[in-house]
């Protein structure tokens, strides 16, 4: 019989056992009556000979149990019953912890999504980024002169009116060097990518690769899309492929809709990228095997100094490398703000936990007579502590669950946060790592702070406790602990309230900051004629004319 079957056959085993014992007694009684006893006498004698039926049945059942596991389960059952009896206490404790855990799950999710999540490309650890934006000619020099990278790529963010079947809409994409996808080591989910070999001078590669999301959104994931022509600011581009599903470019917030070769960018957005001082490109490199980040940094620094000497536009240039994305940029104020928030969230958890510990201590004090009686009638201290711990763990897990639920709701709203038509996304949906952290935080906070009242019980003298009534048992020490908890709580809360006020104050100040003009009654409008394919220089003239006309008519 496997242990699994046994678990479900227990009821049968127990009832068979009872029946067997009853049969035994009946047989004995019959035998005794045959010897001449009356029924009453026989029953009495049979039971005496047998022993305590209940106790024997229980000890026979134990053969089938896992005493440790089952007594722990019983602890939890009892704890649950106790909590249901005092819903006020349970709800307060659970909500307190839910707030603490919830805030931490939100901030940790953000940290996780922004700092810890690697780029969705093969071997993301061997990618490095030049710390600041560079011009395209400088990128070409880095690419040609370095000894540390197997390849370097460059891209810039661009916006254009994309025309699909004669309807034009604003879109955001990237203009990338021809080797972009090859350096990243990606495989298309449909069609193919453009390559360095496709580039033969300005406007020589009118190819476009769509992001998976854009393909789903604008083409309903139609597989016939490869070979179709779309227009960017009225210039035709042939769709050659679709990027992999999880690839959203190498910036963390900006998700491009498409990629076009850099050689074709000028005709679309009108920017002349061949100026050395036009620094709008992000440059990434794939390290050669065996080359360390340090060596690559020295290499790039040497090249940048060399260029500073050679070109007037590059005077004073020194560059180094860092990890791509937000993780590599420790000076980024957004990252600092995020860390600040994480610290505040931990403080909230600390405040919540100290509050929880006080609630638990108070509850243990309320129950001290009950606990003392249990000690007096022979329960071991360990059993009582284990039972209180079960209560604590139960509350922390429920609290953690509720908190995580709240956090997920909040994160879902945050993930859809966007500014106008800019394709900004936060990949901050909680993953396994976040859930593990949430469980660990709740269990740890529950155990760490639930152990405080447990300590009191350990030191309780049962006789004293019963004699002196509820409050005084071990009271001296308890008040010291509670005072200390209160102190931490007040300190943490003061800090939190102050920093919250400072933050809000700062935000209000920002909103009120003088712009140098009076914004009252002003309407903001934008005209972009490039979307209609009108070249930059001309469109500026037209735009100016439009505005003058409009302004004149307003007067």
């Amino acid at each position, binding site marked *: *019989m496997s242990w699994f079957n046994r678990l479900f056959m227990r009821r049968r085993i127990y009832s068979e056992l009872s029946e067997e014992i009853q*049969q035994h007694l009946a047989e004995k009684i019959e035998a005794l009556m045959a010897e001449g006893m009356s029924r009453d006498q026989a029953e009495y004698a049979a039971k005496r000979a047998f022993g305590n039926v209940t106790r024997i049945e229980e000890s026979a059942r134990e053969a089938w149990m896992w005493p440790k596991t089952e007594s722990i389960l019983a602890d939890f059952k009892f704890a649950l019953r106790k909590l249901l009896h005092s819903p006020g206490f349970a709800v307060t404790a659970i909500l307190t912890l839910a707030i603490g855990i919830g805030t931490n799950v939100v901030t940790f999710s953000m940290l996780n999504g922004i700092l810890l999540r690697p780029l969705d490309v093969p071997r993301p650890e061997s990618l490095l980024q030049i710390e600041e934006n560079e011009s395209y000619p400088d990128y070409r020099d880095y690419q040609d002169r370095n000894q540390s990278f197997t390849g370097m790529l460059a891209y810039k963010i661009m916006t254009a009116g994309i025309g699909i079947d004669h309807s034009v809409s604003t879109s955001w994409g990237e203009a990338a060097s021809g080797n972009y996808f090859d350096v990243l080591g990606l495989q298309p989910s449909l069609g193919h990518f453009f390559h360095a070999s496709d580039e033969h001078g300005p406007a020589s590669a009118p190819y476009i690769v769509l992001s998976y999301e854009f393909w789903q959104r604008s083409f309903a994931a139609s597989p016939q899309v490869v070979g179709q022509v779309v227009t960017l600011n009225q210039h035709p581009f042939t769709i050659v492929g679709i990027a992999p599903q999880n690839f959203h470019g190498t910036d963390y917030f900006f998700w491009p809709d498409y990629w076009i070769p850099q050689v074709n960018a000028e005709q679309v957005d009108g920017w002349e990228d061949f100026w050395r001082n036009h620094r709008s490109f992000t440059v990434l490199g794939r390290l050669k095997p065996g080359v360390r980040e340090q060596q690559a940094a020295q290499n790039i620094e040497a090249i940048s100094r060399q260029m500073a000497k050679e070109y007037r536009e590059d005077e004073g240039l020194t560059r180094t490398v860092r990890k791509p994305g937000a993780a590599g940029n420790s000076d980024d104020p957004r990252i600092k703000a995020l860390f600040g928030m994480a610290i505040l969230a931990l403080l909230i958890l600390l405040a919540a936990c100290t509050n929880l510990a006080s609630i638990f201590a108070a509850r243990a004090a309320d129950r001290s007579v009950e606990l003392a009686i249990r000690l007096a009638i022979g329960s071991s201290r360990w059993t009582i502590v284990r039972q209180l711990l079960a209560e604590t763990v139960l509350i922390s897990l429920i609290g953690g669950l509720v908190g995580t639920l709240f956090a997920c709701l909040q994160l879902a709203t945050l993930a859809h946060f966007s500014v106008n038509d800019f394709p900004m996304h936060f990949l901050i949906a909680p993953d396994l790592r976040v859930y593990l952290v949430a469980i660990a935080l709740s269990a740890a906070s529950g155990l760490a702070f639930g152990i405080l009242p447990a300590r009191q019980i350990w030191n309780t003298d049962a006789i004293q406790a019963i004699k002196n009534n509820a409050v005084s048992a071990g009271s001296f020490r308890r008040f010291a602990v509670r005072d200390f908890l209160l102190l931490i709580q007040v300190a943490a809360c003061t800090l939190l309230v102050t920093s919250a006020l400072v933050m809000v104050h700062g935000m209000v100040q920002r909103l009120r900051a003088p712009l140098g003009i009076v914004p009252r009654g002003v309407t903001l409008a934008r005209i972009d004629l490039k979307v209609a394919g009108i070249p930059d220089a001309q469109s500026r003239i037209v735009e100016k004319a439009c505005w003058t006309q409009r302004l004149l008519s307003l007067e």
Partner: protein
Amino acid sequence: MHGYALVQHIKQRSNNLLQVEEGSLYPALQRLLKEDLVKAEWEVSASNRRVRTYRVTTAGIKHLEREVSRLDRMLEGLFLVLSTDKS
């Protein structure tokens, strides 16, 4: 043999020297059942009573032999110690 019969059997075979609390037999039987050293079946006894009959399994026999030889050695040891004390 079923529980009640077992008790009687032990009493008779030991000339009433071994007087066990009858009930204590059952926890022991349950442990044997769990270890698959015996198996149990419901049968109708000679006195027309529904009883649960236990039979020793092969594993049970092996286990019994081991235990008996251990007991023998222990008794032998005890006997030796006691007999040397007398002399």
